């Protein structure tokens, strides 16, 4: 199924601005084609690394998309940045560095502490969102604002992109205000 990719490449050559607008659509398409799902990637990372997943996005290396997942381990004070293949989930790149807890700001630290204390299941939520919104997850990030820790997901569906926030403590959705 090289066809959509070819379209993409053609588009890329014809108009860069169009490509930028269609970036999300192309990403979503690539995710649909992937042999290795986001859930699998998340599970693999969770099995191989202790700590918490704080960020996910699709990384584009020479038109080759990969899952880029960041993990922080508060106990060993290490931060891992992994790139997993969409094809078979193999680890394409791994970057680990140790971070002083002091270098995390208060919000980040609070987010990690809250997440650790909760019984939040990331994979379950990912599956739920995909099901409920009939959408693909393009990226997500752990955040803490005003004492509330949440994952901010960027979804792409037929209606376009939309943001969905899930409260880590309660596991419930945070409403989004239009306008």
């Amino acid at each position, binding site marked *: 199924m090289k066809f959509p990719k070819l379209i993409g490449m053609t588009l890329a050559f014809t108009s860069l601005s169009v490509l930028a607008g269609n970036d999300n659509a192309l990403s979503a398409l690539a995710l649909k084609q992937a042999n290795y799902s986001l859930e699998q990637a998340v599970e693999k990372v969770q099995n191989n690394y202790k700590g918490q997943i704080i960020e996910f996005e699709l990384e584009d290396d020479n038109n080759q998309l990969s899952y880029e997942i960041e993990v922080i381990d508060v106990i060993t004070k290490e931060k891992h940045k992994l790139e997993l293949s969409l094809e078979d989930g193999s680890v394409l790149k791994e970057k680990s560095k140790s971070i002083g807890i002091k270098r995390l700001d208060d919000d980040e630290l609070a987010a990690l502490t809250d997440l650790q204390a909760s019984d939040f299941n990331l994979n379950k939520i990912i599956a739920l969102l995909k099901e409920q919104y009939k959408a693909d997850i393009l990226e997500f990030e752990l955040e803490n*604002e*005003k004492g*509330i820790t*949440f994952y*901010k997901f960027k979804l792409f569906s037929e209606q376009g992109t*939309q*943001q969905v*926030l899930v*409260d880590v403590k*309660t596991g*419930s*959705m*945070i*409403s*989004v*205000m*239009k*306008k």
Partner: protein
Amino acid sequence: MAWVTEWWKTTKTASSVWRLTRLYTVLLLLIVSVLLIVLYQLSIGQMSRQQSLQMDNEIVQQTELSKQLPHDEFIEQFKIQSENSRQYILSYQYQSQVIGRLNTFPQNISACPTRTRFPVWSNQYNELRLVSGCIQPLHEGRLIIAIDDEYLYVLKDQFISASLIALALALLFGVITGVIFSKQVLKRINSFNTTAALVESGQLSARVEVSKNNDEYDHMALHINTMLSQLEESFNTTAGITDAIAHDLRTPLSHLRQQIEAEFTENFKQNLPTESLQLMLEKLNEILFTFAAMLELTRIQQQKEKKSQHFKRVDLNTIIIDAVDLIEPLVEERQQIVRMENSMSLFVNGDASLLFRVLYNLLENASKYAGNNAEIIVRMIKNGFMVIDNGIGISDDEKDKVFQRLYRVEKSRQVTGFGLGLTLVKAVVQLHEGNVTLLDNDPGLIVKVEFFQTA
């Protein structure tokens, strides 16, 4: 740090001043608190109440509309209203549809009029906003109404931190003024105490300092000074009369004694009876001895101002040993025992012969009044000594009087003496900046002599 603990100690002892400071600080805090509460109610509280009132009105309005309009029309107008309302975040859920400003219906929100604070993501500000709202069940669905009142909470937080700072400042102010106030008051009171202590130690000429403020303390000081002047005068008068008597009678009595002595020698030579003359001589000697003691007492009592010039460093232990040695034959004559306990060197600046007199007087008194077979103990203590006997002791109401000139304990009238022994003891001890106290030994008496300054 040191002055704080020092201040704490002094204020703790002078508890009235400390209590006043505390009361004053608490009152100050109370006033500041009340002011802050009133201020809060007039500003943020008022805003908050007004906001609730308006929101209640909006709820009533929507409820009425939902009752009056057909459902379709209600939804139409709701869509328009929710989009146009700047103040409220309005959403409506019926069946599984959500219309209005929010994309999903938030969970765990209380029913109106109780409000819940819940987070809402704002795409406009690209941040999480905390809003207050509630759910109102309507005819066919549920209404959620919320207001972005974050600014009110920010104000509240600011008000609370400002209030805490204000209270802390008030506390600090209260304590500082309290310290200054109590220090000033304590200084005055301490000057009274110092003077009283001086007078107690026998320095009757001591007077309280009078400031120029002419306040209550100065009035009190003037009264106390007048009282002290009168006291000193009457004391001097008493001492003066006895002295005058002793002084005036001493010369004629001495002459009388010389005459009797001459008579005695004459009779003795001629082998005439001398017993009655002998007796007369002894009586006269006693009287002369008393007069001498009285005059010496006055001398010691008046000496205070220019004392210490001839004082030397003396060991009380040696003086006690000497006194015990001297009294021993007399004691043994009465089948009494005298012994020393806890013997150790204790140096004081003083007059060795006067201190010896103190010891000897006390031992003599103990022996004289404790009766046969009594046991007399001289025990050295940290800054002085005690003379302990197991005799009849002195009753509480007589303990103060025995230090007066010529006073004699009722029960001991039959024992010879002139009531000057303890007066002399006290005068000498006070001359050495010390204190004499009488305690019960059950049975018996303990005379405790302490010196404030040991060398």
